[in-house]
């Protein structure tokens, strides 16, 4: 016999059972405790509209027991109440109701302020709406797919299917979405037969049915996310038809939340679909629509008394024991353990109350609750044709009793709405926010009309017919479903990625790229570059070719250097500033032999440089072409005293300073691979940065490693690069710089051609350099092993920070870069960094004359 576990108790399952039905059959009457007063809540709607039966199923909280099919082996937990839902110590708060008027959180805990964090923790635990399974949470990222259609029909009932059939027949692309199977919410009989034939008509016309998917909101577009078993479906729809039907109207009167009170459809469903008697003796309160509730209940052995009139109150403690009704014959009291309410229908229109001006049409019961099947089909056909659908009768708002819970989700009573109104919150949207009525899991499905009726009765001016807005999601989706399709990390890889991994490199995320941090021995990699020769994959550098009659004008505008002074075959260090004069990126500008330019940027700055260049081309109308080459060209840096010899072993070209000046470039062929060799000085040794076609990267790398064995070549990664460049005092943008660093603060004033009449940031920079410098990036020498990020202090006052540092093997001391503030107008020459002494000194630290890199 199949069964599931409910709080440690074994509940047998009969075929067709939902969790609620099986539990109820086994005698479970309390499913949750209300949020504030911890009152018992039992089954009420049985259509998935209220929040009374939310339970945790196999670790997933917030599942509606009344619409979740029961399966063997499930583990169900009722999460509210402490220590348990049956014996809830916190139910004492129900008796303290008088001490907790509406808004009491704001009033009671305003002072003393220090008490609030403590109070908040306690209050949060006291509401107990479920525990998130943080450990052992269901793992995995859901998938998300996109779908487009002309018409999205939400709700596969009679109206929805008619709309779909009509729209599809008119050659619109139609998707119908339903939480279950089309027509499943209809009572067996005539309605289902009509639905089945409409479904066949819709399918034949080409409409797509998405069953077991829930539309959780309508966003601008119209864009409707659907949560389904396979993941998220993001639908972009030309227009949306909401045909979600109607639910039983919620009754508000004193005692209206007692277990044992049923909405008519709920009681009927329990009786007819599950064969379970909701109670022994039921009062069926009928408003005249007569939906067969009495008959259905008698069919399962319930003693039914049909009553007409207005409920005065429902009575009982942990469950219903009796009701008092004002009947045409006068006030009567009845003993009973069941009260079945048939007070009319409310449109199930939560989705509609979210949409702003999007093209949404409402059809069927969702527009006119209780309309006939023929009318629903007619509505659907009209909506399918794109015609407006007008509600046949005005939506009759319910009356409010003298007491009772208006909003069961949030435990808001009529008296609290009255109190809020008296305090001056005289508008339905404001009352909603102050009392939290309609802000619970059902988002006003039960009570938004009651709130509107309350405001209208008070004579308040009402926007949107007094109906308050609902917020997505309509149903609680899992976070994994919502992030489906969102990829947090997208890595770029160079062509040599596989070789790095095969060589045992530790691959690091450097900006948007994956790059080798080290191949295992950072000190050995550094030594190879300083003493012999090393190679590094620098394919991540941004590269752009700029050509055309206005190429020079474009580059002069965007860069601080004087482009005209860079002769063909030469390179120059470049800076790009933003409009405020702060350093945005650095790199090299190479003037090509044929009049074009090659611009290199930092790996992380390439995208931004492209947008920057394209913006200026667009705004100024420059006749210049920007050709991004970052993806197309690999780049390998060959650096060290033997760099030229290594290249010489693989190339017949002239590699002397005559052919490849410093700083400059030339085209050469290395191991049969055409390269542009750029002489660079970043690591402080003789270096050739070889830019080549990406498809040849592997050949070139392999050839360099093979021929390089003669000099014991090693590949090096970012860790070694960090030390090598630091020994030369070169900055890493973003690591050694702050967002408001202009070139003067970085000692890079020499890279700015202030005599150029115009470039981006010039005016701001001119203004700033006229002011005394109040912060500088400086070189530091330490009498010990420094720490990156450590503060720099003078007389106990922090005036700076270490941005990069290392213990340099080549120099046999601790060195670093850091920014410091001026103290009394001067920059301190010596500072304290923790226990160490830091002395400000000139950079480069290593080979200050730059002899080695000019070899």
């Amino acid at each position, binding site marked *: 016999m199949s069964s599931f576990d409910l709080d440690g108790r074994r509940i047998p399952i009969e075929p067709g059972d939902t969790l609620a039905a099986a539990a109820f059959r086994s005698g479970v009457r309390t499913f949750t405790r209300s949020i504030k007063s911890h009152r018992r809540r039992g089954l009420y709607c049985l259509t998935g509209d209220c929040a009374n039966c939310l339970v945790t199923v196999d670790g997933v909280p917030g599942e509606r027991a009344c619409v979740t099919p029961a399966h063997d082996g499930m583990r169900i937990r009722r999460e509210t109440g402490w220590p348990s839902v049956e014996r809830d110590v916190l139910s004492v708060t129900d008796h303290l109701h008088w001490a907790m008027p509406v808004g009491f959180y704001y009033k009671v805990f305003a002072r003393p302020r220090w008490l609030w964090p403590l109070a908040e923790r306690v209050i949060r635990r006291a509401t107990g709406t479920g525990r998130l399974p943080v450990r052992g949470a269901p793992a995995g990222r859901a998938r*998300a797919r996109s779908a487009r259609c002309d018409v999205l029909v939400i709700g596969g009932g009679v109206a929805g299917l008619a709309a779909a059939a009509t729209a599809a027949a008119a050659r619109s692309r139609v998707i119908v979405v339903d939480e279950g199977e089309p027509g499943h919410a209809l009572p067996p009989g005539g309605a289902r037969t009509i639905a089945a034939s409409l479904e066949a008509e819709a399918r034949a016309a080409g409409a797509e049915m998405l069953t077991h998917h829930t539309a959780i909101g309508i966003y601008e577009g119209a864009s409707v996310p659907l949560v389904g078993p396979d993941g998220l479906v993001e639908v972009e729809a030309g227009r949306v038809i909401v045909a979600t039907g109607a639910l039983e109207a919620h009754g508000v009167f004193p005692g209206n939340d007692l277990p044992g009170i049923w909405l008519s459809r709920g009681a009927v469903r329990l009786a007819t679909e599950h064969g379970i008697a909701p109670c022994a003796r039921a009062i069926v309160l009928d408003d005249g629509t007569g939906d067969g509730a009495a008959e259905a209940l008698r069919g399962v052995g319930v003693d039914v008394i049909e009553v007409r009139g207005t409920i005065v109150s429902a009575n009982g403690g942990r469950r219903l024991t009796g009701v008092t009704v004002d009947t045409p014959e006068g006030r009567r009291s009845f003993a009973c353990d069941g009260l079945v309410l048939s007070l009319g229908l409310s449109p199930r229109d939560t989705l509609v109350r979210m949409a702003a001006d999007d093209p949404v049409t409402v059809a069927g019961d969702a527009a006119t609750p209780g309309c006939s099947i023929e009318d629903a089909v007619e509505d659907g056909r009209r909506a399918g044709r794109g015609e407006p659908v007008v509600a046949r009768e005005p939506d009759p708002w319910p009356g409010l009793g003298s007491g009772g819970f208006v909003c069961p989700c949030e435990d808001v009573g009529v008296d609290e709405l009255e109190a809020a109104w008296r305090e001056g919150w005289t508008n339905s949207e404001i009352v909603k926010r102050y009392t939290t009525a309609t802000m619970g899991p059902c988002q006003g499905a039960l009570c938004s009309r009651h709130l509107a009726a309350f405001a209208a009765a008070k004579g308040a001016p009402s926007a949107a017919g007094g109906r308050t807005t609902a917020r997505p999601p309509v149903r609680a989706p899992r976070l994994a479903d919502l992030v489906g399709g*969102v990829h947090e990390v997208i890595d770029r890889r160079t062509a040599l990625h596989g070789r790095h991994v095969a060589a045992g490199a530790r691959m690091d995320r450097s900006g948007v790229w994956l790059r080798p941090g080290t191949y295992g021995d950072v000190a050995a990699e550094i030594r190879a570059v300083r003493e012999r020769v090393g190679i590094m994959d620098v394919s991540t550098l941004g590269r752009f070719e700029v*050509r055309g009659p206005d190429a020079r004008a474009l580059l002069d505008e965007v860069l601080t250097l004087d482009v005209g002074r860079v002769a063909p075959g030469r390179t120059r260090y470049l800076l790009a500033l933003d409009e405020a004069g702060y350093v945005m990126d650095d790199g090299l500008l190479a003037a090509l032999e044929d009049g074009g330019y090659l611009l290199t940027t930092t790996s992380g700055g390439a995208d931004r440089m492209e947008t920057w260049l394209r913006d200026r081309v667009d705004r100024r109308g420059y006749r210049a*072409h920007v050709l991004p080459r970052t993806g197309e060209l690999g780049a390998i840096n060959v650096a060290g005293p033997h760099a030229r010899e290594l290249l010489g072993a693989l190339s017949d070209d002239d590699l002397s300073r005559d052919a490849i000046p410093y700083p400059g470039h030339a085209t050469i062929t290395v191991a049969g691979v055409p390269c542009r060799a750029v002489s660079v000085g970043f690591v402080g040794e003789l270096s050739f940065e070889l830019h080549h076609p990406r*498809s040849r990267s592997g050949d070139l790398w392999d050839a360099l490693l093979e021929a390089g064995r003669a000099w014991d070549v090693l590949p090096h990664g970012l860790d070694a690069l960090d030390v090598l460049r630091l020994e030369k005092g070169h900055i890493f943008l973003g690591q050694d710089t702050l967002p408001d660093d202009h070139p003067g603060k970085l000692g890079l004033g020499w890279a700015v051609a202030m005599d150029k009449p115009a470039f981006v940031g010039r005016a701001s920079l001119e203004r700033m350099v006229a002011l005394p410098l109040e912060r500088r990036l400086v070189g530091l020498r330490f009498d010990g092993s420094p720490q990156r990020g450590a503060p720099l202090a003078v007389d106990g006052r922090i005036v700076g920070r270490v941005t990069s540092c290392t213990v340099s093997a080549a120099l046999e001391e601790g060195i670093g870069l850091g920014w410091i503030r001026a103290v009394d107008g001067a920059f301190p020459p010596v500072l304290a960094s923790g226990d160490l002494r830091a002395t400000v000194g000139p950079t480069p630290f290593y080979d200050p004359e730059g002899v080695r890199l000019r070899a």
Partner: protein
Amino acid sequence: MPELRRTDLRVVTCLASADALDRLVAPGHGARALRLAPDESAFVTAPETAPEVRREVADRVAALEDDAVVRDVGDGWAAWRLTGADARDALAWVSALPPPPPGAWIQGDVARVGAKVLGEDDGLTILVPAYWDDHLRTRLIADAGAIEVTP
């Protein structure tokens, strides 16, 4: 289930004024012409025909204006063929773009990177910048359920 395999394609890019590109007659050799931007056209072609295509484009655009740039930038792109009856449905798992019918093309967000999608008789060709090659392959396999056929 759709099939996924790498394919070798070259891309000849032509940067010129909008006017020149409007008037430029597309080259032959089965090259697909894509007008990517007002000032940029790309011609996607098989490797064997790439040099011819580049020459033809360069000659034709030179007759229209002086400083156009024509390059084979194929190294900068990775190309994948997604084929089979469900190829277009498979794209929906990684992109909101309407899958192009044979002969048409579209550029936009595929698996959160900028891609060009070309409609073919038997499915789609997807081009992404070479450094996102691995990302696209991984996403398609994880989300679209495509079977990879090693080339």
